[in-house]
């Protein structure tokens, strides 16, 4: 079966997995709720009760935030990989997520605005941090003309570390010891704080961002043949790349402002999606989005059940799976296939 024919099938399977994962996410946890009750509560036929509160006010927003964040990170990873022409790109590995975290934390500590102002200032600062990190890493990796994969990943990891350390430093020095939890949240990511009132912005951003990027599938494909190749095929690469940089940073900033810096989703999911339906973005992006959503909902379910009642930051689990995956990809790469222009 060719990848193109496989597309509807893959979408169907992923949608099923996502629904099943969400169902499990609502039923399982410190309190186990029977599937029938969950169904009743979600469809609205159940009587009010403690289960109802747990499912609707605690677990459902967390599942939705997980799905939105996972989808977004996978979409961003896909796009970054096209921008830098390297399948080893990921918002976390390139320092973009850490930049967003640093920006967000700076706003929290400086206390810019309270209440309503925070809901704007936090994502805005996260966006600024993400964009600054991305531009910095890209600039460092490109220095001296061509960009190699090794150089890109090294620059990304270095910038990521510095910004994570900066985030921790700001939080630890700003006040008391209760900030340890916050350090974990911002540097490793976590969906524990999800509430209904924080879902509107990330969900809107994800939906709009993904639709725009799917509409940009053709120029995104063109980026894969390199700067000169894309230009002779009619793409103004400088302008397009700048635009997508901003869009990817904006999306990262908004997601990270709510979930912290969750790594490797944007590395693993696009890679798997590409193996399933090929590299053309019109079909790749929807598959990556659905796959990322299902993956992060499952990872978060594991994060709060494997060591219950401990709630492990979900980024710990994605790193535990993503790190080895990264090494496997590094090992499997053909010599000379480093994304350098030939």
């Amino acid at each position: 079966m060719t990848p193109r024919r496989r597309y509807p099938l893959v979408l169907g399977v992923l949608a099923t997995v996502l629904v099943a994962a969400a169902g499990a996410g609502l039923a399982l946890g410190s309190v186990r709720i029977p599937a029938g009750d969950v169904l009743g509560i979600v469809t609205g036929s159940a009587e009010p009760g403690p289960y109802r509160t747990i499912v609707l006010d605690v677990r459902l927003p967390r599942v939705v935030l997980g799905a939105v964040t996972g989808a977004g990170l996978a979409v961003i990873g896909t796009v970054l990989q096209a921008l830098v022409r390297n399948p080893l790109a990921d918002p976390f590995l390139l320092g973009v997520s850490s930049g967003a975290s640093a920006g967000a934390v700076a706003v929290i500590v400086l206390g810019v605005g309270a209440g309503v102002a925070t809901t704007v200032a936090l994502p805005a600062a996260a966006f600024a941090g993400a964009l600054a990190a991305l531009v910095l890493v890209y600039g460092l990796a490109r220095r001296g003309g061509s960009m190699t994969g090794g150089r890109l990943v090294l620059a990304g990891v270095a910038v990521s570390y510095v910004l994570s350390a900066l985030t921790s430093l700001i939080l630890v020095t700003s006040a008391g010891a209760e900030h340890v939890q916050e350090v974990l949240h911002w540097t490793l990511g976590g969906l524990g704080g999800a509430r209904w009132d924080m879902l509107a912005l990330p969900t809107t951003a994800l939906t709009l961002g993904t639709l725009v990027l799917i509409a940009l599938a053709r120029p995104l494909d063109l980026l894969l043949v390199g700067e000169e190749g894309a230009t002779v095929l009619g793409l103004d690469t400088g302008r397009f790349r700048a635009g997508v940089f901003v869009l990817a940073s904006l999306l990262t900033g908004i997601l990270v402002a709510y979930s912290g810096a969750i790594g490797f989703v944007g590395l693993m999911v696009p890679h798997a999606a590409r193996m399933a339906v090929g590299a053309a973005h019109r079909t790749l992006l929807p598959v990556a989005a659905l796959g990322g959503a299902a993956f992060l909902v499952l990872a978060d379910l594991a994060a709060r059940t494997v060591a219950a009642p401990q709630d492990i930051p979900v980024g710990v689990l994605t790193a535990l799976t993503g790190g080895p995956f990264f090494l496997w990809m590094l090992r499997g790469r053909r010599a000379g296939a480093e994304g350098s222009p030939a």
Partner: protein
Amino acid sequence: MTTLRAESLSYTTPQGRTLLSDITLHAADGETVALVGPNGSGKTTLLRCVYAALRPTGGRVLLDGADLHALPVKARARRIATVPQDADAGGIELTVREIVAMGRSPHHRFWEADTAADDTLVREALARVGIADLAARPFPSLSGGERQRALVARALVQQPDVVVLDEPTNHLDIRYQLEILSLVRELGTVNLLALHDLNLAAYYCDRICVLAGGRIVAAGPPADVLTAELLREVYAVNAEVGVHPVTGAPTVVYLPPARVTATS
């Protein structure tokens, strides 16, 4: 009617190395012009100036009298197609069909999908260069020659007025060298190509420009340009140039360095 002109073109790198100086050449519809010359003589640099990957530091490239570098990127891509010397698909794998279909990009708004007519063009182009059976294969998995043919197919679906080819026969078997050059000639476009093989240049091209050290040292019909004296001067080789009894084109036979001959 399309005409391509380069007017006293020069290119100096930001580091101050002059790679091209005072290049003037022209070509019109249906004409195929070859750039020949030793390695490093500036063939690729000249071609890159013509397809606007490089901005010349002096002079202009004119397409139908209009400055090529002033055209919007997309409008230029509708008129000029490029077959680069070595295609690289990066670390991410598109299929051959997807790579070839990219040739339709300049004809669409960026959010538009390809139409059935585009798919037909792509299928025909793949068949024309003899790789229809490779359409679904990942582009990086192809051999050098197959990739080169895929890129020629991409230039075909681009439906340009000018085709710029950098060593299009580099990785090809003899059969495909001949087929690709015949195909390019049949297009009726303005063709500008860098070639290593002087005999192919003599047979397939209307005019030959000989580059050495970034300058044009000779230009004109193959029979006028290809002389033993020029080859000795430019390439530092001894050669015998005759007229082929069948094709009527000049033929070059290279002689080993030791056996200097006076014949011409």
